[in-house]
């Protein structure tokens, strides 16, 4: 069975764990860096990017996750996870992992009052719209070479993939549609 770690420092950990169980994978809550050696793929969940960013540095995850991604192991970041995986946050000095060749803007749709549910077209997942939940969500303003855009909202990029790396600015773990988690698990399966 595929073992997927969910970085469990802060945020929507439980929802990802449940979703992974529903998809038939074995989820593991990651709180210690040595646990990373045992997993086939990693999810960095939504939460507060400032908070998770600080804890990542304090508890040794900064280098560990970079190393994991550089081994071409699959990593999926949702919302705060996307921000932390990016190369740079536009207009801010937040320290990111710089493992995904994208530049992002935080809270790009506005404050909480602008948080929204959107029926999202993701051609790779089929015709049926995906119920995407955006919470104070970031957008991807610039993408590097070999980065493939998977979804947009009003012309703004909200989901991309580069080989083993996947990011979305919305929260599939808050919906009841498991297509994105299955897509990620397929990615892990292919690399294994």
């Amino acid at each position, binding site marked *: 069975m595929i073992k997927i770690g969910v970085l*469990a*420092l*802060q*945020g*929507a*950990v*439980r*929802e990802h764990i449940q979703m992974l169980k529903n998809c038939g994978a074995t989820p593991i809550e990651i*709180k210690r860096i040595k646990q990373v050696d045992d997993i086939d793929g990693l999810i960095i969940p*939504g*939460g*507060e990017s*400032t*908070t998770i960013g*600080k*804890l990542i540095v*304090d508890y040794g995850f900064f280098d560990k996750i970079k190393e994991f991604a550089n081994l071409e192991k699959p990593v999926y970041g949702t*919302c*705060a996870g996307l921000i932390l995986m990016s190369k740079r946050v536009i207009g*801010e000095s937040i320290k990111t992992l710089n493992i995904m060749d994208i530049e992002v803007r*935080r*809270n790009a749709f*506005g*404050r*909480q*009052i*602008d*948080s*929204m*549910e*959107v*029926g999202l077209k993701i051609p790779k997942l089929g015709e049926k*719209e995906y119920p995407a*939940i*955006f*919470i*104070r969500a970031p957008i991807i303003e610039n993408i590097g070479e070999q980065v493939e855009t998977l979804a947009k909202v009003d012309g703004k990029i909200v989901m991309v993939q580069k080989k083993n790396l996947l990011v979305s600015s919305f*929260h599939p773990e*808050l919906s009841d549609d498991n297509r994105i988690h299955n897509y990620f698990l397929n990615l892990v399966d292919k690399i294994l």
Partner: protein
Amino acid sequence: MKEIGTFKVKTGLAEMLKGGVIMDIVSVEQAKIAEEAGAVAVMTLERVPADIRKAGGVARMADPQLIKDVMNAVTIPVMAKVRIGHFAEAQILEALEVDFIDESEVLTPADEQHHIDKHKFKIPFVCGAINLGEALRRIGEGAAMIRTKGEAGTGNVVEAVRHMRLITSEMRRLTILSDDELMTAAKEMGAPYTLVKYVAENGKLPVVNFAAGGIATPADAALMMHLGAEGVFVGSGIFKSENPHVMAKAIVRATAYYDDPEILLEVSKNLGKTMTGLQISQIDEMDLLQKRGI
């Protein structure tokens, strides 16, 4: 399809705060200290609860200009409190586009019979509760997040412990009741039947449940997390301590690693003087904040 202000979007923000610490602040400078320490959100007030208790008089919503300044100064979500039942204060905060509203017993209640109809707002609300019935009534009114009331401004965790233990044990009890006992349970608790049924089936609240009211040390935060809190609010505990930055950072780490005694030991050292605590028995029954708006 594109929709804002749905219940899913409101509870979604609360879900993102899980495992985190929300800190009371009274100035832009304190907000920046909180953000720097790793707070998941800040709660803007005119005075922290310990000072509200000392000052007496009527405590109201903070000056919207102060809240606005805080919103401009930090990137984390900004919360602010309104008086129980004071929907006009809430409308003002919605117009300001604050991220979360706390309909709070820490401020002087504006209505002793009714809470705000929170379904009418696009901004999510958090409310305090001392037991399960109260928590479910608030959710029935539209609250997207619950916290224990504890006894704010005391630096004494005993009431938060009492409320968290009671809520979890009442939830456990519902899970073993048969279907035909649930309506009676709903009647006894004064809670909406559908929500009672939800808890009976799922063993948890339909929204996130944080601890609040009297948390003053990293160990207090860890204790509350062990008892089932999904995160903590710290009011006076940080900015009434000798070294707020160190205390704030320590409580953030203790909340994330509540089940790791080695890390708790590390962050509990050399914190300086903690806030002066208050025995609950020293407070007049009339002055207990937790008795407001149940």
